[in-house]
């Protein structure tokens, strides 16, 4: 007995150890801060209440912020996932091997270059004194400014798409690989045309993956703070920026920021739930590949 007890503990630690450590880590870094945010957003001077949420959701200024955030993210997600799908399609079926290597290398780089450094790269390229701005002006007499401004919604859209297209491409690639060459050959042998194959088999199989990547890129764009802040210095009304300003020097209201943050968490959580459901549907087709 005295010997077996520590042994049992050792065995059960081996069984749950790594997972247990992971859960403790998640509790400390994800669950606890979220719980604190929620608590602090409803903890008003007059007791528990939702008045901060009514403040935010009835204020035209924050509603505009939400509309801008949704609009920018939806547009970005649509562009990035469509471009990502085209890239993945051509990668899987048409590209020569050398271009494939180049595309993969570039995509890995671009997906991992984000945040402030990405914003500064674009300022160096297309800012008022950017290389492209000056090059176009000096060589071709084309003036980017004032028609275009990197510190605007159009600029943000461009930068987000640059960052998220390779991301969408890399995530979509396995799905395209799941459309096996044998399926196409079988369909062709039975008299179908290529476009018929895609319409009746290819696209229906890929559709959930496409929706999933759309949701994922939406959530990614929706939650971006540092790129947007560095690029526009706060000139656009996006909810992540408003959360930052509520921690700033003038309007110091961290509880209102907490309420905005909880609303963002709800939005992105819904995205994750939808993504999970959709990727389960896709995985049925990809299991045996």
């Amino acid at each position, binding site marked *: 007995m005295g010997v077996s007890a520590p042994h049992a503990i050792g065995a059960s630690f081996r069984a749950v150890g790594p997972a247990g450590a992971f859960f403790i880590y998640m509790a400390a870094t994800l669950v606890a801060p979220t719980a604190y945010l929620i608590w602090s957003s409803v903890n008003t001077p007059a007791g528990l209440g939702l008045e901060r949420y009514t403040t935010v959701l009835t204020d035209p*200024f924050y509603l*505009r*912020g939400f509309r801008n955030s949704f609009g920018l993210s939806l547009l970005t997600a649509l562009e990035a996932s469509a471009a990502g799908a085209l890239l993945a399609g051509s990668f899987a079926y048409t590209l020569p091997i050398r271009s494939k290597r180049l595309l993969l290398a570039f995509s890995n780089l671009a997906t991992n270059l984000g945040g402030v450094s990405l914003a500064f790269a674009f*300022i160096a390229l297309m*800012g*008022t*004194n950017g290389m492209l701005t000056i090059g176009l002006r000096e060589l071709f007499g084309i003036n980017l*400014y*004032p028609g275009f*401004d990197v*510190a605007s919604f159009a600029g943000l859209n461009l930068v987000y798409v640059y960052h998220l297209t390779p991301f969408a491409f890399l995530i979509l690639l396995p799905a395209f690989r799941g459309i096996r060459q044998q399926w196409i050959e079988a369909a062709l042998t039975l008299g179908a045309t290529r476009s018929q194959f895609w319409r009746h088999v290819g696209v229906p199989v890929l559709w959930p993956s496409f929706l999933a990547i759309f949701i994922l890129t939406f959530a990614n764009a929706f939650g971006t703070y540092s790129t947007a802040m560095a690029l*526009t*210095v*706060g*000139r*656009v*009304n996006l909810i992540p920026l408003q959360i*930052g*300003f509520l*921690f*700033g*020097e*003038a*309007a*110091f*209201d*961290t509880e209102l920021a907490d309420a905005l943050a909880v609303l963002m968490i709800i939005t992105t959580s819904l995205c994750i739930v939808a993504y999970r459901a959709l990727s389960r549907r896709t995985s049925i087709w990809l299991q045996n590949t």
Partner: protein
Amino acid sequence: MRGNKRTIAILVAGLALGLPLNAKAQQPDPEKARTERKIVSYGQPDDWANWKEIWQVFCAKYSCTHEDTDMTSAEEIAKFKAERNNPAADTAEIGMIWGPVAVREGVTAAYKASGWDKVPDWAKDADGNWVGLYVGVLTFAVNTAIVKNVPRSWADLLKPEYQNSVVISDPRTSGTGVATFLSGTFAAGGDEKNLEPGFKYFAQLYKAGNLKAVGRNLANVQRGEAPITIGYDLQAAVWRDRLKGQVPLEVVVPSDGLFFMPGALMINKWAPHPNLARLFADFVLSDEGQLLFAKGYAHPIRVLAGNLKLPADIEPKPITTIPPEAKYVRDWNAASVLLRDIARRWAQEVLGQ
């Protein structure tokens, strides 16, 4: 049981004795200060207002070490409050507009330093929760290699020739941004109780396309990305000196209204080194401490009040002298109430969001 009662009686007696001792802890004890050995500050960094030398001289006197973490006034108040059970910092420099907020939040220790009486009334809290140390004048730092026709006034900045050239700090995130906004407001005929002219002026400046969307910092000035920056003279002068030989910077005091804002000191209510903190407050209001600010291009508050004279041979020379008709905020309570307005209305009325 009886033993317990005796313990309680001793504790109560101790508390009763402790009370007057606590009240007396208001005054710093130099002996105790020597055992504290360390002083920690927020928002008093080496490269601002000559804090570096001030800390060096102070710590040489009281054989202490010093640490600073730079942050905004709002963060200072939030940190004092959040850390009250495990306090880290003793003092902080605070924008005076935040003084009343700090008092409302209850994070300050009331202490009237030995130079207290020599600070003008408008620049201190009546109970000693915060006290002004120096003032900075809002100026334009103009890169004359890029801007040939140097702007001389706030009105000049509206001209089309300064398209995409004026760089300011965001009043929503920065103390200098708030000061810039107030400076423009006073120049446009407003004051701390009437911000209307300020919003009109900056909306006009923004719509004209003259405000450039880059960060206001030394790197951007050096790269030529920020042709005209607006900020305190004490910072502009340091930038000018540091960029000597690389970027020709002219520091301009706007002709349509010299406006200044004070920097103030507050002591953490829960300061872990309370004696050093109070001795430090005494030191920065002493003749010696005050003149050290001037070496960092700041204008010592007692020079402004007229009870301390700058030596004729002071180096470096200040950017400007402050005339009696200079504009400044007199009612900090009113200004502090309007802070939230500034943030919101800046987004809506200036940036049109």
